């Protein structure tokens, strides 16, 4: 019945939605930022541990739709071990992919995140995929302890 949605809801997304990775609190995290999408009520808290400019640990808490949960679950995995600059660059690449600004999917750069490319066909859902990354961006730039996408 839902054949049209295969690109959006790939099995990987269902899997991360059912069993989100890095779903835990980091006590004494170096950065802790809350992200909120008032339109759909998605709310997540992102925790980061930093060693100089390297992200050594990342985790999250909160609840959201399958897209936003899969996105933050994947993101918290992929940024571990990356430098702040690398993570910021990935945000830009990811953003361009999900908004359709960059038509070609840069598989090498985005890796597993490619499963989220499907949102580009669903403008109302792009924010679900990017909430985690906007929250990360705020955390890395130390711009307050909560952000809201609107």
């Amino acid at each position: 019945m839902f054949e049209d949605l295969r690109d959006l809801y790939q099995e990987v997304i269902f899997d991360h939605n059912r069993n989100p990775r890095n779903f835990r609190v980091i006590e004494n995290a170096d950065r802790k930022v809350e992200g909120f999408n008032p339109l759909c009520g998605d709310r997540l808290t992102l925790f980061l541990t930093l060693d100089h400019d390297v992200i050594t640990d990342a985790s999250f808490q909160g609840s959201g739709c399958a897209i936003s949960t899969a996105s933050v679950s994947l993101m918290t995995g992929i940024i571990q071990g990356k430098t702040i600059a690398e993570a910021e660059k990935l945000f830009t690449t990811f953003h361009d992919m999900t908004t359709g600004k960059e038509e070609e999917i840069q598989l090498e750069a985005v890796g597993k995140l490619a499963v989220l490319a499907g949102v580009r066909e669903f403008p109302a859902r792009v924010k679900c995929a990017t909430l985690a990354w906007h929250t990360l961006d705020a955390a890395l730039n130390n711009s307050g302890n909560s952000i809201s996408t609107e």
Partner: protein
Amino acid sequence: MTNYPIAKIRADFPILKQKIRNKDLIYLDNAASCQKPIQVIDCIGNFYKQDYANIHRGVHTLSQRATDKYEQARHTVQEFINAKSAKEIVFVRGATEAINLIAQTFGKANIAAGDEILITAMEHHSNIVPWQMLCAETGAILKVAPINQQGELIYAQFEELISAKTKLVSVVHMSNALGSINPVKQIIAAAHAKNIPVLLDGAQAIPHMSIDVQALDCDFYVFSGHKLYAPSGIGVLYGKQELLEQMPAYQGGGDMIRTVSFETSTYAGLPYKFEAGTPNIVDTVALGAAIDYLTSIGMETIAAYEHELLLYATEKAQQINGLNIIGTAKEKGAILSFTLDNIHPHDIGTMLDSVGIAIRAGHHCAMPVMDFFDVPATARASFAMYNTKAEVDVLIEAIQELINVFG
């Protein structure tokens, strides 16, 4: 209902004939805004083709004709809600503007520091924020009567909250997030016993039941045209004449004045005192056409049909494992708000859209209601006069299937 003219009604709504993602459109987002019958669409086109001019200002034929049609719409609204006089019908942009108008005029003139405004916990943001703004300006206090787990007003507590300081009771007639219909007659009687005026937010109630403002004895009744099969950008503020007369003007400008000099101006009488500037002429006339359409079928007939549809949908929904209906009030309009275990409303919305079903997923401009039920959002199917049991069947099947897909 065997003699309900469903085939004719559906044929009157051109938009319903289309396919969305190769499936027949099933439009169940009527509480957000409903679709327009050809009678309303044609009315707009014909008015521009034949009758358009500014109103109340020209001696020429077109201006007279446009004025007549605009004022005819006022009489149509008056009859539709059984107001005593057409002077009591003020045209505004919608329910939101109507409530803001009351807050800024009646509110500022009558509500002072320490006074109380009483609302309920199921209000739409538009019946919360204007009062918060007034309270911030005046030092008045907003009181909120609680609801129970069924989404019903806890009437006893509401009554206890009416105090000597209460200057206005403002409650939703039918909740957009839950479908609950409030015991408005009882509310009005209790408030009037203490000489407190009552404002009813009728944005959701108006398309689903017949409204008689004199029988209700409410002091204000507000609604939006776009939820009543008319265009957006036009709405109605009904107010009792004595109250409207005492209220200061809202905006200043043309049409709302009698005389103007640089020293002072005198204001026009009702309802023009509240209608400054060139109004939304065409959509007002179209609102009249929408009401004519509804009365040709009969609000009682529509209400009975929709009630049957709601009962049918509710019964089917209750059979789905993992589906939770949010809002199970005994008195309820044609709204089915629900959540599914472990599936976010936004995913439900996208999945249903992919098979042509339009529902709303979100907080429905009622964040306090979401907080009360401890959900971030709900999925909401809301029914209109043109929906059918066959559409409900497709909805239910799709929900069942998406539960399977999510696993």
